[in-house]
């Protein structure tokens, strides 16, 4: 007789031994919670950085530089880019939408007094605002006046860093700058301080700019541009779109978090599987009598195997749902973590999205299933008579 045991059987068995089932489900839940926690941090960071960049904005760096901090472009060359590059778009007055920006990560004290972090300060030109368009907006105060010792700070910076509230004075090297406004940006610039490039470069005694950023004319072939400028005589450059640039700044932290997440999950997963196996073994042990009866009324070994596997999967499912519930509150929670590519602190939110929750539940079910294999196999191999007698 090839019949399956009704679905209600594993379900009811689970409820009858709910304590043991709950504990092993909790073990699984913690495992997937750890996985999701680490990945939510990684995804939050990666998505944040990826969404930041625009495909229409081009970033020119010095060849070899892997980030702005390593790059250097002389003022003469900045002028050359702005005035001669044909791919750079113009505004309604015919002025090129391009800016030479200076960039340096400053040592600044945290507002809560525990430690110092590296906060990027960016010297920008008028054109910079036009280039970033509506991804950038002021939330408080006003923009800095060109030529004045004034700065504006990203929203998270104003709360996390000392002397960065509106009205405060921040000393850059030896020059005091007044904080006149707080801005917000959809991406990475929100973790920065902005000021007039002339004033910032002057205060830092750094005459060289770090990058040229520009809005490209529609239809520009970036690949071609990249190739052309790589070996250009006048302006050898490393060309990336803004999105590519930001993505290239995520690989170290992203890699570290991926390795950490996978490593922790595999190790913890082993522990969770052992726990699930224990629970299911006990379940099989306690139900030998029942198994014997099921066998003798005609259910075959495979049917028993499936019934117990279903039970194990249910344990995993409960664990997965519990794990998802544990990490769900993390979604949207803001945190500051050092970007290992630039050594600067980046503020972004954990991201717990449906695909991640799906992975969590999937892994949990898998852990339950693996934990159920041995006990289910044992149960399916019992001889009916033995099982009834021994139970």
């Amino acid at each position, binding site marked *: 007789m090839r019949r399956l045991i009704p679905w209600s059987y594993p379900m009811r068995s689970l409820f009858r031994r709910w304590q043991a089932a709950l*504990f092993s489900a909790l073990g699984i839940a913690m495992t997937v919670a*750890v996985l999701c926690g680490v990945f939510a941090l990684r995804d939050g960071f990666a998505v944040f950085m990826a969404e930041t960049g625009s495909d229409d904005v081009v970033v020119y760096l010095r060849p070899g530089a892997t980030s702005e901090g390593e790059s250097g472009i002389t003022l003469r060359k900045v002028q050359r880019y702005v005035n001669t590059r044909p791919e750079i778009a113009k505004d309604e007055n015919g002025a090129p939408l391009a800016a030479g920006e200076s960039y340096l990560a400053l*040592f600044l004290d945290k507002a809560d007094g525990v430690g110092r972090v590296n906060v990027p300060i960016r010297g920008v030109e008028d054109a910079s605002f036009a280039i970033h368009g509506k991804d950038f907006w002021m939330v408080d105060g006003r923009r800095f006046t060109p030529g004045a010792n004034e700065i504006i700070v990203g929203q998270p910076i104003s709360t996390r860093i000392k002397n960065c509230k509106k009205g405060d004075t921040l000393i*850059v090297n*030896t020059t005091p700058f007044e904080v006149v406004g707080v801005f917000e940006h959809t991406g990475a610039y929100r973790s920065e301080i902005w000021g007039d490039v002339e004033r910032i470069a002057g205060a*830092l005694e750094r005459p060289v700019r770090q990058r040229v950023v520009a809005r490209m004319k529609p239809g520009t072939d970036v690949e071609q541009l990249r190739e052309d400028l790589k070996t250009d005589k006048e302006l050898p450059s490393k060309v990336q779109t803004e999105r590519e640039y930001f993505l290239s700044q995520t690989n170290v932290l992203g890699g570290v978090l991926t390795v950490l997440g996978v490593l922790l999950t595999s*190790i913890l997963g082993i*522990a969770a599987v052992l726990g699930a196996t224990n629970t299911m073994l006990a379940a099989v042990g306690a139900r030998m009598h029942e198994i014997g009866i099921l066998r003798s009324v005609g259910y075959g070994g495979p049917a028993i195997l499936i019934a117990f596997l279903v039970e194990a999967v249910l344990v995993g499912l409960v664990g997965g749902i519990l794990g998802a519930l544990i990490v769900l509150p993390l979604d949207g929670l803001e945190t500051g973590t050092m970007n290992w590519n630039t050594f600067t602190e980046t503020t972004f939110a954990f991201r717990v999205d449906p695909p991640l929750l799906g992975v969590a539940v999937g892994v949990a079910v898998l852990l339950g299933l693996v934990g159920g294999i041995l006990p289910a196999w044992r149960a399916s191999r019992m001889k009916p008579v033995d099982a009834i007698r021994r139970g």
Partner: protein
Amino acid sequence: MSLSLLARRQAGGHPMRTLLTVGAATVAIFLFCFLRSIVTSLDAAVEASASNRIITGSAVSLFQSLPSAYMGQIEAIEGVESVSRFTWFGGRYQSEENFFAQFGCDPETLMQQYPELLLPDAQKRAWVRDRRGAIIGQGLADQYGWKIGDTIPLIGTIYPRVDGSDWEFTVCGIYRSAKPNLDEVTMYFHWEYMDRVLEEGGSYGPRGTSVFVVKLADGFTGEEVSTAIDAYYSGGPQRTRTQTEAAFQAGFVSMLGNLPTFLGMLGTAVLIAILFGVVNTMTIAARERVRSMGILKSLGFPNRIPVRLYLMESTGIVLLGGGLGMLLANLTQDPLRAAFGTYIPVYHVTQDTYVMAALICIAIGFAAGAWPAWRASRLRAAESIRRGV
């Protein structure tokens, strides 16, 4: 029959279950040791720092170099015995992914200031003589298979050569370190050579020095000399911040921000998970043993006996698993150190970690045994014999 023997027999009565729980405990305690060691290893460099060295860097930014002229001025400050220059090079080997720390430095002063840098005399002399020479840590030599006499080509990122070629350095020596404040995954080469190339226009990049390492003269404290140096440059052109070596190292750890906290949270989650696992096992065990506990009671054993039995069993299981976990943590130190490379160069499991792990095992064992023990102590003999089928 002693109580501990009975506890052992009980645990042995279900070998598979006990084994699985021991395995889970092993895994969890290993993870705990691993996560905690990441944090303690980051701190190790801070703790081992020398007290007779202070480090002068830019007060403005980690990435801002100081003018090289500062060297002579610092040497003239009272309490300074010697000054050496260190410049972060930031080169990559073959491709952007192969990254390790490289510094341009003053070889002779470096070796005099850092007695913990262990290098055979012949290699020391060879390095001082060879302008393009470099020394590398044993860890780097192992990782890339470099030997003395090899040429290491590096791609400049901050200092790209104008003609697009690689920088080339000759391995003159392979050093070991006597203390965890000096890692074995760094390359040191001649500052003068790099500066010469920059001066001749052979490379892009800022001239200058990332930090000056100052060795204090006898009888001077780090604090007074630091204050003197920083006061000298308080008006610019680049303000300095001089710190003890320990504070300088601690600055790097604090830059990691909330990473140590994050690892701590993960560690806690791991321990909670294992607690669930052991509680689970003990609950299952207790359920099956209601009857035997009833028998013990009806034989006249007092309540504390089943309580002790359960506590002993669960603590024993966790301690056994935990012991294996600690052993595993101990044995995996070398491969993990190699895997961490530049990021955590001195990965090491400290004695404190083992002690903490052992205490946690006992605590988890007690917590997990407590519930079934409490239940067992409340059972009435007759009822439990009847109930326990």
